[in-house]
């Protein structure tokens, strides 16, 4: 029973990640391969603040969000004016560099040893720990994020993003400051990814760089692409599907030594199949013209 709540908690965390990546990929047309970096930045900022400085969770969270947004400028400012391939490469570079920082800046992040003993959040003396309580906690936060994303995407801001995705030149000719919008989209996406990171860190209470690698960024991208980009349903489908697959494998009795490899192969195959037969994913609406 606990296990089911555990999976549901992870689904909540990944929902926020995929919905926020969708703001970039599905709405702004920006294929980012560094989302896991922001996931990690959120996790590390919060973990460091709470373990080294004893700061309360509800202060660490906003600081992690702001920190992530500020750091997003490091990648968005250089990259948003670059075309397609070059943009992806810049996010690629950012992902590698951030991972190196997590791994090598040992005095700050404890490097490959990771940070352990991350305290669970406590609210007015009530400790939120264990899969069941954390599920409800993460559910509240993911619903709030879902509503937030929905509001901004339905608002004029979201419409401009879609316009930019369809035809940047025309959007500029109509007075839209495309660079500014892209930078803002990046900031939102990174802020939400940081929230996921914080949730993750305080749930599993131990983090190390291996959770925030290029592989993870590719996995997040797969969720959005397979589930579908460009609307709200797609990432939801994608998250459920891609997080259930490993559980199905476990259910089928596939041994743990080879399960990760088989899981990855399934993701890879799904990517190829969807890109060929259904580039808008299961439930999405953006097809990359």
């Amino acid at each position, binding site marked *: 029973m606990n296990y089911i709540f555990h999976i549901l908690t992870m689904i909540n965390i990944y929902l926020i990640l995929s919905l926020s990546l969708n703001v970039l990929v599905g709405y702004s047309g920006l*294929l980012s391969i560094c989302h896991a970096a922001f996931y990690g930045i959120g996790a590390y900022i919060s973990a460091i603040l709470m373990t080294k400085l004893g700061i309360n969770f509800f202060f660490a969270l906003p600081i992690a969000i702001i920190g992530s947004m500020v750091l997003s400028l490091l990648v968005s400012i*250089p*990259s948003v*004016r*670059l*075309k*397609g*391939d*070059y943009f*992806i*490469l*810049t996010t*690629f*570079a*950012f992902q*590698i*560099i951030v991972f*190196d*920082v997590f*791994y*090598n800046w040992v005095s700050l992040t404890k490097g490959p040893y990771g940070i352990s003993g991350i305290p669970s959040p406590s609210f007015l003396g009530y400790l939120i720990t264990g899969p069941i309580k954390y599920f409800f906690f993460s559910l509240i936060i993911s619903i709030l994020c879902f509503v937030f994303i929905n509001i901004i995407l339905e608002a004029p801001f979201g419409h401009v993003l879609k316009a930019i995705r369809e035809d*940047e*030149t025309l959007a500029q000719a109509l007075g839209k400051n*495309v660079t500014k919008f892209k930078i803002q989209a990046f900031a939102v996406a990174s802020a939400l990814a940081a929230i996921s990171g914080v949730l993750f860190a305080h749930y599993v209470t131990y983090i190390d760089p291996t959770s925030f690698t*290029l592989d993870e960024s*590719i996995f997040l*991208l*797969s969720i959005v*692409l397979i589930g579908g980009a460009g609307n709200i349903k797609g990432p939801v489908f994608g998250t459920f599907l891609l997080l259930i697959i490993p559980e199905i494998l476990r259910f089928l009795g596939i041994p743990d030594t*080879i399960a990760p*490899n*088989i899981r*990855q*192969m399934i*993701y*890879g*195959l*799904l*990517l*190829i199949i969807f*890109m*060929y037969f259904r*580039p808008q994913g299961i439930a999405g609406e953006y*097809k*990359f*013209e």
Partner: protein
Amino acid sequence: MKINLILQFLFNGLATGALYAIVALGFSLIYNTTKIFHIAHGALYTIAAYLLFSAFILLKLPLFLSILIALFGTALFGIFIEIFVYRPFYKKNAPPVTSFISSLGLYIVLQNLIALIYGNQVQVLISEPEKTFQLGSIIISRIQLLEITTFLIISILFYLIISFTKFGKFLKALSDNSLLAEIIGIDIDSIRLKVFAIGSMLAAISAILSALDTGIEPTMGLPIVMIAIVSVIIGGSSVFEGALVGGILLGILQALSIFIFSAKWQNTVVFIALIIFLLFKPEGILGVRKRLEEIKI
């Protein structure tokens, strides 16, 4: 003496750079003629290494034969990938992004397949210590010499092919304007096959040298293809030779960064170099400055 140490690092960088240059040339060949961002190139690199391993260590075949198997086996794989994965996308005029993402998916599938078959651990092919000799104060290993020599031979061969053969002219035409090339009747399908065969073979050459030098593991392809991509961009993505220049430069840059900062920041240095180039000189060292309007928006 510090200067000797630097020289040693520079030489090592040159040898590693030679390997990078060869893989990068393979990537550049494929990218410039087909416009496919062929990340799976890294998987072919790994496949070559494991083919060599299977032939030489598992089947205990003679080294020379094993190398041939690895070379031609990889070329064959490259052709398969073109026929069964990329060509369908090409035929339906799919947007380039979808080919890129499928290439990514393909890489993931292949890397994990290899891990499943062979296990995740590092394997070593040659366990005796490498023969070395001394040139001045620099220690040179036999295989480093082989790496640099192979690079030189390939560079010269490539130059000759590109400049003097009809095939080379077709390649240049495709890289400039594939639509026009198609219209004047160049058999694009057959050239694509050849390009994938040659490109994959180049990856194989590099992989074989690397496997004999340091060993193999299933994840070896991704860092290599990343460096290949950076080499192509820094050297100049619009001309094939850019890959060669970029590869050597990156090898040296990496060696210098290991010398100055220590090995753990080598990736960061490489990618910061990439960002600097993308921002200030996106056409690369050898590239021609395109109209700004074609690169930036």
